């Protein structure tokens, strides 16, 4: 139980530190009372997590809710995810003493369900809509050539052939033939199927206790995070995945924070597209 409680506290501290950093950066680029309030709440949450005080978890719920409310209805999915996580951490923190042990275990299982749900349903939605599974989505991302993801995909697929760039304005009056090699199309299709398969099967494997599934899921998250450059979500998700282990060492939490921060600096600093 102590392990579970420590893990929840470490996760809370990780999210609070990320929120504090994000609010600080946002305050510089776009000064406003919302970022200041969010930053202050995250600072309180970080202090509370460090001192094992329930008001820290309460402050983090406030920060997460404020972010969702002020960005609604355009709220990004990882903000909803953080709100769910904040609610769970808060319930564990404020549980009455007589049922504290069981609530902490309950909260940890719900957090595991949360991260598995993100992977599993992402895969199912990709099947439901069809664009991703056919390879069309990744090819389109490569062709539009306007993001880190596009750059990473082009680099990765360069052994199978080059991908021409297109622009939305070129397509207004009709279709443009694309000289794409058959091997590139095949490679992208196989990759797309592989990604969807991993998103669905790995969470199921973790839920069923398959040996090594949690390591593969962690590796998949790191890979997807690097390619998509979704640093904010990758940091949260990697932290959530650490909860799949009973007692993640403190070094793992620190490495998660510092590692993704370093990737963010590389991308935001313009060293990568």
């Amino acid at each position: 139980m102590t392990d579970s409680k420590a893990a929840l506290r470490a996760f809370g501290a990780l999210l609070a530190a990320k929120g504090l950093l994000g609010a600080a950066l946002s305050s510089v680029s776009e000064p406003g009372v919302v970022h200041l309030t969010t930053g202050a709440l995250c600072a309180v949450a970080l202090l509370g997590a460090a001192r094992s005080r329930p008001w820290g978890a309460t402050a983090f719920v406030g920060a997460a809710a404020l972010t969702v409310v002020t960005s609604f209805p355009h709220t990004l999915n990882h903000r909803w995810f953080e709100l769910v996580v904040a609610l769970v951490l808060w319930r564990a923190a404020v549980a009455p003493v007589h049922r504290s042990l069981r609530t902490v275990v309950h909260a940890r299982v719900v957090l595991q369900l949360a991260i598995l749900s993100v992977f599993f349903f992402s895969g199912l939605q990709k099947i439901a809509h069809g664009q991703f599974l056919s390879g069309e989505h990744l090819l389109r991302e490569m062709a539009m050539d306007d993001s880190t993801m596009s750059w990473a995909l082009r680099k990765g697929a360069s052994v199978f052939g080059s991908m021409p760039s297109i622009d939305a304005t070129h397509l207004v009056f009709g279709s443009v033939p694309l000289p794409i090699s058959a091997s590139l199309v095949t490679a992208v299709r196989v990759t797309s199927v592989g990604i969807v398969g991993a998103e669905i099967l790995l969470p199921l494997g973790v839920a069923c206790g398959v040996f090594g599934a949690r390591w593969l899921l962690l590796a998949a998250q790191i890979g997807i995070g690097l390619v998509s450059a979704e640093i904010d979500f990758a940091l949260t998700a990697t932290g959530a995945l650490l909860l799949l282990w009973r007692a993640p060492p403190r070094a793992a939490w620190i490495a998660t924070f510092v590692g993704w921060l370093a990737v963010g600096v590389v991308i935001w600093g313009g060293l990568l597209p």
Partner: protein
Amino acid sequence: MRAIHILRHGPDRVLAWVALLLVGWPMAHAVLVQTLDVSSWRFGGWGMYATAAPRASQVVAFVRRCDAPTLRPALASRGPRVGVLDDGGLQLGGLAVDATGYRLASDLAAFRGDHHFVAFAGWLRRAHHVPTRTPLALAVVEPRVHVSGRRAMGIVRLAIVRDGELILRDRFSSSVVHVDVVLPPCGSTS
């Protein structure tokens, strides 16, 4: 098995509801995306990357040739990102719309329903001072890469809006979109 037992018989009722939400909402969200054109990228349904990411610059508005001379100066003066398109042969009065200030259709829902076109036309008139009576043809371009044919296909949804009402909506994926054909002729009332 133990995890399922904890989820079902855990001590905290709020956590139980959260767990139920984590399983139920993504499924409901997928249905909403299919039936109501809700964006798969929003509202916490974990459908990011399942559909093409919304790109606000893909809306192009056209006006009739007779309306273009009076509109072009005003439209062209709205900023460097608002340009005037000219297809050469047809000399259409058209403008590439900077739609970054308009997020409702492109960000929260797929640009498919009639109300999306009407709402966008209303925003466009206010943003670019286009008179209500001037018919607007809106071409919403959805860039697709047609894998089997190895072609980049501009799937175009076209609509004409006037007086706050949609008077024509169609979908083109052919090589040429003849906008002047579907716009009402100059001087006509319908």
